[in-house]
């Protein structure tokens, strides 16, 4: 039975319990991931990180949450009150919703009922996730706008620009997956990866998705919307107490959500690592949940690693990277992938396919070497103008000590 059929047989109580389970898992993961991030980043900087509350500081995030809840809830006078309150709600709701279509396990025994841990399976599941992710950005944009303050507004504007640019690349990177899987349903995409993960066969797509998911979640090095060094706190500068906590929550749930999507689309979802397929039957199928979360946490580690390593990009560099590198590259890659797909579907001779691959590689090398040559030329030209004599007036350099002392 396919996933969609299995889910279709779920009685109401199973759906309700599943929803509760997914929600609880998200909140729990968020709390743990806040702790994990702080610990890992601390280790990367040779610190020990939070270690006071509970064993290894495990309760730190919980205590922080309580602290936030007890703080005074301020709404600035200049703020648009309704939108100001609504923004964090939109942000949080949206990030939880994308989990509805992510298959967390294979077929399991759920209190005596055979089902899969997936709330619903719609035929355009991935599109739904993309749509929900975009709605989540409204939370940030509206928060920035409704604060009635300059820095939050700048943060919100940056965020909208960021999401527009990186969502295009993200969507394009998924097209290759759709072409290969022949479906937009998450469960079918997972099923299509039983032999090879798409991270292997569609490696460039995987890389583009990984980069753009960091941009999409406003995380370092793409955290321009927050940019605590430039914009105080960016869009959430004016937020305090539980409303701030909601933004905090949604950021981390979002990380988990995009990681879960990446796992589903590129790393074979809940399937075990190659060669460990027998583990999928353990605990009546529930062990697949462990596989799923191992992969998600792997992505989470990459997020933390990026944050610990890279400085924030400058805004123009960031935009340039999105529009001039990621998008053209994804477009070219989609053309290659679709051509290959059509060729293999129409049983083109193997020679043709190999010839096509080689010609693409040749064109790629030719273009990159041309760009490199141009860069070298530009650097040469820059060096000529960059002589020791500056072309603006400067005071003469004193040559003797007496001159220096007497001015």
């Amino acid at each position: 039975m396919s996933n969609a059929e299995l889910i279709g047989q779920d009685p109401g109580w199973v759906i309700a319990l599943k929803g509760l389970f997914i929600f609880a898992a998200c909140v729990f993961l968020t709390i743990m991931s806040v702790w994990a991030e702080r610990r890992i980043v601390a280790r990367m900087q040779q610190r020990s990180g939070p270690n006071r509350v509970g064993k290894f500081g495990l309760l730190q995030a919980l205590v922080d949450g309580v602290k936030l809840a007890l703080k005074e809830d301020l709404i600035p006078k200049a703020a648009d009150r309704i939108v100001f309150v609504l923004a964090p709600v939109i942000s949080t709701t949206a990030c939880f919703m994308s989990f509805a279509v992510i298959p967390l396990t294979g077929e399991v025994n759920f209190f005596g009922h055979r089902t899969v841990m997936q709330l619903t399976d719609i035929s355009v599941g991935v599109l739904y996730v993309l749509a929900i992710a975009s709605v989540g950005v409204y939370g940030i944009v509206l928060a920035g706008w409704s604060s009635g303050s300059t820095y939050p507004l700048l943060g919100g504007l940056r965020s909208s620009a960021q999401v527009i640019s990186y969502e295009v690349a993200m969507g394009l990177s998924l097209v290759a997956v759709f072409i290969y899987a022949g479906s937009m349903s998450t469960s079918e995409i997972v099923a299509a990866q039983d032999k090879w993960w798409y991270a292997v066969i569609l490696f460039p797509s995987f890389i583009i998705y990984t980069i753009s998911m960091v941009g999409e979640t406003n995380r370092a090095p793409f955290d321009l919307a927050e940019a605590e060094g430039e914009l105080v706190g960016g869009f959430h500068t004016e937020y305090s107490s539980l409303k701030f906590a909601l933004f905090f929550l949604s950021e981390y749930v979002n990380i988990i959500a995009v990681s879960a999507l990446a796992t589903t689309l590129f790393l074979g979802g809940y399937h075990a690592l190659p060669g460990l397929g027998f583990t999928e039957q353990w605990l009546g199928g529930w062990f697949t949940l462990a596989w799923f979360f191992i992969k998600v946490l792997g992505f989470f580690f990459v997020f933390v690693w990026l944050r610990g390593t890279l400085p924030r990009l400058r805004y123009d560099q960031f935009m340039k990277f999105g529009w001039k590198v990621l998008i053209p590259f994804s477009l070219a890659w989609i053309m290659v992938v679709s051509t290959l797909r059509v060729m293999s579907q129409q049983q083109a001779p193997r020679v043709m396919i190999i010839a096509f691959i080689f010609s693409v590689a040749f064109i790629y090398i030719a273009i990159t070497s041309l760009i490199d040559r141009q860069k070298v030329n530009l650097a040469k030209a820059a060096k000529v103008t960059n002589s020791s004599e500056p072309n603006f007036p400067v005071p003469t350099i004193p040559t003797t000590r007496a001159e220096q002392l007497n001015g």
Partner: protein
Amino acid sequence: MADELAPRSDDFGLAKADQSKAPITNHESASFSKQLIGFWVTFKTMFKKVNTVQYPEVKEPTAERFHGRHQLNRHPDGLEKCIGCELCAWACPADAIYVEGADNKEGAQFSPGERYGKVYQINYLRCIFCGLCIEACPTRALTMTNEYELADSTRGKLIFEKDDLLGPLRAGMVPPPHPMYPNTDDGNYYRGEVTESHPSQGIAKND
């Protein structure tokens, strides 16, 4: 230190300095492989021993000459070294020290010589721990300890009075006021010729 202060033979090395050969070039980004090294650095660091000191439980000694809380010292017989000259207060760039001197009474001295510091306050909300007061002190009365735990809950508590700053009475010291060591003047004290208290000065602290 010395050679840094001496004038250099080649006029600050300006002749050698060549702007075109300056090493700082921020125009080109490093190659991709070089940028990847950064990831290895952070990854490697995760498995290093952490530098953190578990502070309230574990306290590491400060550097030997760390500028901590001040202390007003005593002569070996218990008399205070401070003569109330206010040079520390005048030297203080943050105006953190307040001193009021007073005359010593013959036979009931606080410090050897004519004057002693009657009121001595240091405001630790203003003090910047620069140590200029220590350099200014002519009798070595004021020195700094390594104590750095100076946080408190009110402004008032952070103005340290003379009692808070005075060094402890050690064994053999007589709590002032008391007469000076027999047949000495303040010069003998400053030259370090008084090394203990005399029975005529009072009952010495013994422990």
